[in-house]
């Protein structure tokens, strides 16, 4: 069987997880301009929730719902209890990055203190495997790809066809103007955090499902490819993040079989840097200016 076709299959799975995670990351960033570096650790938290659910006898569906729910609650809570108070107090871009890093340290090491620094895996029944055009997928991996497609379609539908989606785009473009037009931007921001958190939680569970064993640092390590995908497309642009996820996911898995698995992430990151040298604002973003944090 052709090894490149096989690695294309792996690339599709990585791209799916990345797409869920980076669309969530970029949606929230686009609306609020808070660079949330604790995102990866919320993913880990959702993975642990899913772990507890499967340990208590829950199946994959329950684990995914619990993961998405806990991600949404955690993100909303983080914003309401930590980030918004800091922004109201006058902390701005640089400061907010430091705040999110501190939260990331607390969450990651808090999880480690609770669960110990060992390996965990979701206790689910052994999946059956299927072959498609030379690519092998387990039933769980097919669920991951399906979830990614559904999530992307839903995000697209939300942003283009609903009033809420239009309000989100308006807030992302110009929060002041959106507020003057009668949009309740604080509620839009709440929804953005909830939605981003649900995607983050889903991504965390799918990541745990795919890597077979995870630790308290898994999400934090996965954050860097997520950021790379989001930046590649232009931060704040969900469609850019989708394309970025596909580019990063496929290029890393394909380069693993073409060059060496040791360097798979390096290749993806070098693509990111080269793209940024040509288009400093990312693929989709129009302007290379930075906006202020929105409350």
């Amino acid at each position, binding site marked *: 069987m052709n090894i490149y076709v096989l690695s294309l299959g792996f690339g599709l799975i990585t791209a799916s997880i990345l797409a869920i995670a980076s669309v969530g990351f970029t949606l929230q960033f686009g609306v609020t301009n808070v660079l949330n570096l604790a995102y990866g650790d919320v993913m880990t938290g959702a993975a642990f929730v899913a772990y507890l659910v499967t340990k208590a006898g829950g199946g994959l569906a329950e684990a995914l719902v619990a993961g998405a729910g806990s991600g949404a609650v955690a993100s909303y809570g983080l914003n309401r209890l930590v980030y918004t108070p800091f922004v109201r107090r006058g902390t701005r871009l640089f400061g907010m990055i*430091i705040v999110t890093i*501190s939260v990331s*340290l607390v969450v990651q*090491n808090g999880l480690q203190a609770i669960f110990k620094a060992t390996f965990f895996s979701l206790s689910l029944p052994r999946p059956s495997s299927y072959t498609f055009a030379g690519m092998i997928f387990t039933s769980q991996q097919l669920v991951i790809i399906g979830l990614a497609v559904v999530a992307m379609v839903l995000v697209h539908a939300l942003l283009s066809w609903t009033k809420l989606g239009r309000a989100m785009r308006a807030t992302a473009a110009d929060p002041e103007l959106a507020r003057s037009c009668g949009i309740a931007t604080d509620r839009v921001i709440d929804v953005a955090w909830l939605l981003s958190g649900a995607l983050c939680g889903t991504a965390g569970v799918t990541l745990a499902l795919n890597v077979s064993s995870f630790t308290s640092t898994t999400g934090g390590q996965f954050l860097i490819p997520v950021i790379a995908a989001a930046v590649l497309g232009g931060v704040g642009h969900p469609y850019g993040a989708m394309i970025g996820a596909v580019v990063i996911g496929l290029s890393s898995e394909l380069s693993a079989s073409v060059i*060496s698995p040791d360097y798979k992430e390096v290749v993806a990151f070098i693509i990111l840097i080269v793209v940024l040298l040509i288009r400093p604002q990312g693929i989709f973003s129009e302007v*290379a200016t930075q906006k202020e944090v929105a409350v």
Partner: protein
Amino acid sequence: MSSSMQFYVSNLLVYLGVDVMACLGLNLQFGVAGLINFAFIVFQAAGAYTAAVLTLGPSTAMGGFQSYIIGAHLPFPLPFLAAAVVGGALSLLVGLVALRRLRSDYQAMVMLVISLIATTVVTNATGLFNGSNGLALIPQPLKSTLGLSPVGYQWAYVVITFVCTILVWVVVRRITGSPLGRALRAVRDNDAAAAALGKNVTQLRLVAFVTGGAIAGLSGAVLAQFITAWSPGSWLFPESFVYFAAIIVGGSGNNLGAIVGAALVPVAFLEATRYIPQFGYPGLVDALQWVVVGLLTLTVMWFRPRGVFPERPQRFARPPGHGTETKT
């Protein structure tokens, strides 16, 4: 003092010197010039590696149990100088890519990515860097020349560290107190305005970035020569966050703040507590330490967002014939 106590204190003093140097370097980049260099630890590691391979003999000499390049066996202080040069040169290379056209939040994220690239390359290029095992048995500077007892040499190394630290402090102060320092602050606060006044924003950023990188390289060399070992696992990207936390706590943009931050965060919280009795399962104390560092940073960000020693606002004499209203 008993000799074990002397070892403990001299260890902490060397770590203090290394962290003060690193914080002064990062403060120049982040506090003064506003560059969010999340890859800072990479430049420190590069300096440490440079110093290591320049002091070690040829890699075949010790039975070839570790592989690395060069092995020049250079005498002190050449490896230290080379470490600073390599730190600066690597910064120039990264700076030319990352600092020219990118907005600052993208810069921060690209730096994170660069940090991960560096770790991956170093771990996998076993011929160059000996993979994740790293290097061991790095000779210490002047050890045979001085011919001191182990404790005596510890104190001699403290002196070497402090000489380097004072040197760094003098250099950084010269920059921050000069017109160049004011130009860097102007670029940090409003790059468009600085450019409109004829300042070359990219060039100024590069100056701060390269100087900070050279200082990072030197501090890494001092550390690696002291602990006589180097491995990529101890230079991962979260380590950069510790220095950021230190600068935020101490006072970003203020050199005194950077020194106090270095004493508080990496030394007092992460090094000194290494010797408190372990409780719970192995690793619990480590995790809790990091939780405390995170909470400490959040607390400082909340109550003293500009740090314990805030940057002092600059006051300038009014130009003659302007704004001198006379009240009668």
